[in-house]
């Protein structure tokens, strides 16, 4: 016998479901549908054009560039974050009393708003009154502060946005790794030490191989999140100069709001989301089956 009736369960389910339906599933459905239409400037559907929007997307260099930019942004940001975050986690994982305090401090930007992060870095990288270029001049690396225009030079704009992303999310990688390190079997490290492994050997032969699952998990979360970045770029360059730092999310927004091409923007979003979902599902399936195999082995 069921103690909670089906009717009650449905009653429990409905309020939350209505919220999600209205503000989440409906917009997503509309997005998919819109990708097959052209739009008037007033924002109403004009004509059903089958896959024309998708064709435009893949044949116009203006729309291919943001995809390339996004890949570059993700590769640079995520790889630096992973290395830096892992290094910091290992460095700060020893048990000095004062370390714990510093560890908390260094993790504090963890949940800072991306928009604020973008603003801070825009301020620091400013060519006229930014402290970064001033420091480089003081160190004798630059002759004058206008030698590198971090945000206005197409060569550096995307990289500058990466700096902000790296600063904001390295604590997240560090936090994940610290959690992983603290769950390691301390006997294992002890054994390695007794066998005469030096610090580097301990890190590369013992710690990192055992953190594989966590490293891959953090990697998959970060790749998806970095690919969706909007706020940081919006605060720093708004995609400029000359599309140099325009990521897909920015292009989608501009196509929607400034050009009113809702069909095209939706098509872009559908392609983008499909790629991310495919990536994540393949990645996570491998991850999970790997875990399952390991658990099996332990049981045996």
């Amino acid at each position, binding site marked *: 016998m069921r103690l909670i009736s089906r009717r009650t*369960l449905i009653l429990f389910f409905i309020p939350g479901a209505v919220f*999600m339906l*209205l503000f989440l599933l409906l*917009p*997503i459905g509309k997005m998919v549908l819109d990708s097959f239409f052209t739009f008037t400037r007033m924002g109403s559907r004009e004509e059903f054009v089958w896959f024309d929007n998708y064709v435009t997307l893949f044949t116009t260099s203006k729309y291919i560039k943001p995809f390339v930019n996004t890949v570059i942004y993700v590769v640079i940001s995520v790889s630096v974050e992973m290395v830096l975050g892992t290094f910091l986690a290992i460095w700060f994982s020893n048990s000095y009393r004062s370390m714990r305090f510093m560890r908390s401090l260094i993790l*504090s930007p963890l*949940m800072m708003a991306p928009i604020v992060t973008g603003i801070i870095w825009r*301020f620091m990288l400013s060519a006229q*009154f930014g402290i970064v270029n001033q420091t480089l001049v003081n160190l004798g690396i630059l002759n004058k502060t206008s030698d590198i225009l971090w945000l206005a030079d197409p060569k550096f704009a995307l990289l500058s946005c990466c700096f902000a992303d790296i600063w904001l999310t390295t604590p997240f990688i560090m936090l994940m790794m610290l959690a992983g390190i603290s769950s390691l079997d301390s006997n294992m490290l002890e054994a390695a030490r007794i066998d005469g492994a030096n610090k580097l050997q301990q890190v590369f032969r013992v710690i990192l191989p055992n953190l594989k699952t966590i490293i891959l998990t953090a990697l998959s979360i970060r790749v998806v999140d970095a690919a969706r970045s*909007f706020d940081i770029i919006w605060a720093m360059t708004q995609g400029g100069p000359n599309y140099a730092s325009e990521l897909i999310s920015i292009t989608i927004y501009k196509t929607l709001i400034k050009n009113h091409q809702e069909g095209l923007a939706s098509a872009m979003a559908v392609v983008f989301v499909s790629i991310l979902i495919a990536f994540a599902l393949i990645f996570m399936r491998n991850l999970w089956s790997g875990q399952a195999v390991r658990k099996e082995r332990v049981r045996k």
Partner: protein
Amino acid sequence: MNNANIHRSRLRKKGIQDVLVILVSAFITLAFLFPYIYLGMSSFKTSQDVISVTPTLLPPGFSVENWVRMFERLPVGKYLGNSLFVALAATGISVFLGSLSAYSIDRSNSKVSRFLLVLTLCLKMIPLSSISVPVYNIVIRLGIYDTRIAMVMVMAAINMPFVMWVMCGYYRNIPVSLDEAACVDGAGSLTTFLRVILPVSLPGIITSALFVLFCSWNDFIFGLLLTSVNAKTFSVAISEFITAYGLDFGPMTAAAFLFSFPVLILSVLAQRYIVQGFTAGAIKE
């Protein structure tokens, strides 16, 4: 004697090494926090010093000018109030309704839970900018543009799948016999949920509540689209120092510092729950 000397020198060597490690760590910490420290320092410079062509870390002269100008430019209390109201209300709604829905999903043993997992993962991947316009259209049609209610509902809805996913993970470990025992004692379904199930899954509630709180507080793109005068959130107001007033860095540093300080404090205090939230949905237990 000799032995003691060796021991002592080894101790000294160890001591020097300890000091070195701690010094280097302190340096790394300071270097890492530099952007935020610099932001805070700059907010206490005079407006000339903020945009000096030879910037310094420490304010050459202490001044609250930027803070005063921020309060002149912005109805700080109102916008901060909006942000806080939206964050708290969205957290309350999405955590309460989300955990209720998740409970019914878990206890009905249906395939819905699998669908929910997929949905949550997919939602994590959708660029918010792409659904922002359909959401905008819906908000207009409901006649709630530029109201705090609209922001609350959108934020609650966007974060609800996450809450449901986290909570499902917790309910799975609570034996059904607990519900049954409460029912036998004569408690109604809602009472059982509120009095028995929720207290047991408190860590899940805290984790999901913290995340919704941070996400709603930090939201930028929906605030940008769905609010204009009345319901504007503080994050949007900060960004307007860039666009509307040209580049007014002085009051902007004050506003950015003010806006992110509570977040910094809270994330230091709640690190344990944040780890759980980040790994939820990514690690299958």
